[in-house]
């Protein structure tokens, strides 16, 4: 396939805003878990959650211009601006820039605010602004309009497979020469709905930290944030790393073969139903790491994995797994190839193979 390179990174999450905050959190294994309060039939409950702050967006966009933009789109805008700034492309002609955004949940807070207004006031009293912001591609629309991106725009929503599926499209656009660069990213938000579903699924929980390698325990903590990358074809210039291949599939349709010379970056995030699959898929003793305890459990976390892998490859050294190595061997000799692995449901998988330049 056409080799891609990562030219810029823009991240916002519970660890803070920007590459430096992200890199510090990864290096220190530091996670900041907050919470969200949600009304349930049993009263108001507090659900642990990784929360992101979009205040830094005011550095790029006047506050008044954001008054019709909801939290979901603000997260995407912040990730976009940071990635373009990191790539040195802020203010550049973006006529040949494509935009691909992945989201597993979409704008759940606004969607349910819109539905609540329908229920309480009838269809004539439903907010048009809420409706416009409630569709999944609202983030891409807000990013394209605000930044003046005139290339193709795509939003991909396929729950846990959203990020790798979106990356397949981004790669294709670059391979075809349809665009010269792609602003590629993922965004998900914590809302009362997401917290309520988490509470209903797992009941009262008081885990202090995610334990993704403990397959016998449910330890997921919901997260929110945006992770964006500026991708181009490999032009021999400076970049964080290369992306050599992207593969999505189903184990029922053929075997999943993993490279034996790459650090395995696992997307395990404390969900008990997936934890066992990761341990069964990657051999004990393999060189592996998992960084989800830095940003939380959400479909968009797969893009944070890619951003973390890009930083590790640029440094030539993987970050230690914040929850410990589990049954795997930590990177000790320096890393030159990383295979990001995401599993979903009983059989789906995705791998992204990245390498040092």
């Amino acid at each position, binding site marked *: 396939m056409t080799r891609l390179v990562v030219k810029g990174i823009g991240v916002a999450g519970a660890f803070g805003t920007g590459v430096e905050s992200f890199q510090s959190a990864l290096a220190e294994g530091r996670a900041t878990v907050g919470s969200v309060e949600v009304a349930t039939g049993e009263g108001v409950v507090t659900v642990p959650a990784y929360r992101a702050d979009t205040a830094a967006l005011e550095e790029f966009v006047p506050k008044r211009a954001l008054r019709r933009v909801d939290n979901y789109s603000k997260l995407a805008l912040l990730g976009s601006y940071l990635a373009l700034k990191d790539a040195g492309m802020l203010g550049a002609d973006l006529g040949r820039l494509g935009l691909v955004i992945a989201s597993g949940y979409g704008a759940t807070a606004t969607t349910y605010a819109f539905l609540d207004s329908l229920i309480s*006031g009838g269809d004539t009293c439903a907010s048009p602004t809420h409706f416009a912001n409630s569709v999944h591609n609202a983030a891409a629309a807000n990013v394209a309009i605000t930044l003046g991106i005139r290339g193709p725009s795509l939003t991909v929503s396929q729950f846990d497979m959203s990020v790798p599926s979106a990356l397949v499209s981004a790669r294709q656009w670059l391979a075809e020469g349809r665009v010269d660069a792609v602003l590629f990213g993922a965004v998900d938000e914590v809302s009362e709905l997401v917290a309520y579903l988490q509470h209903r699924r797992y009941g009262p929980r008081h885990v202090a930290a995610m334990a993704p390698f403990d397959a016998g325990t449910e330890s997921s903590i919901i997260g929110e944030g945006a992770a964006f990358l500026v991708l181009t074809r490999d032009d021999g210039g400076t970049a964080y790393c290369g992306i050599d291949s992207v593969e999505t599939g189903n184990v029922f349709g053929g075997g999943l073969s993993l490279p034996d010379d790459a650090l395995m970056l696992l997307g395990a995030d404390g969900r008990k139903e997936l934890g066992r699959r990761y341990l069964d898929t990657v051999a004990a003793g393999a060189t592996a790491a998992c960084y989800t305890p830095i940003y939380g459990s959400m479909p968009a976390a797969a893009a944070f994995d890619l951003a973390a892998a890009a930083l590790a490859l640029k440094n030539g050294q993987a970050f230690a797994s914040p929850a410990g190595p589990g049954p795997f061997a930590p990177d000790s000799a320096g890393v030159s190839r990383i295979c990001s692995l995401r599993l979903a449901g009983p059989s789906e998988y995705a791998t992204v193979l990245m390498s040092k330049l």
Partner: protein
Amino acid sequence: MDTKEKLKQILVKDLNLEEVTPEEISNSAPLFGEGLGLDSLDAVELVVIVQKHFGVEIKDMEEGRKAFQSVDSLAAYIEARTAA
């Protein structure tokens, strides 16, 4: 609270006008353009706001255009239809 004060509070909150307080909105200043700076998307939102908070429907575009001139005109429109 009279209609004008209630209206100004709702405008600030529902239209997310974070840079202005209800007290700073002049009753006679234009809502659109140079005044409060609202735009056509806000006009659609205003129709919903007036119905939701005051139970007054604005069905006629010409009536709406006159009512949306200022806080004074919108309050008068609402009061004329809720007085009966």
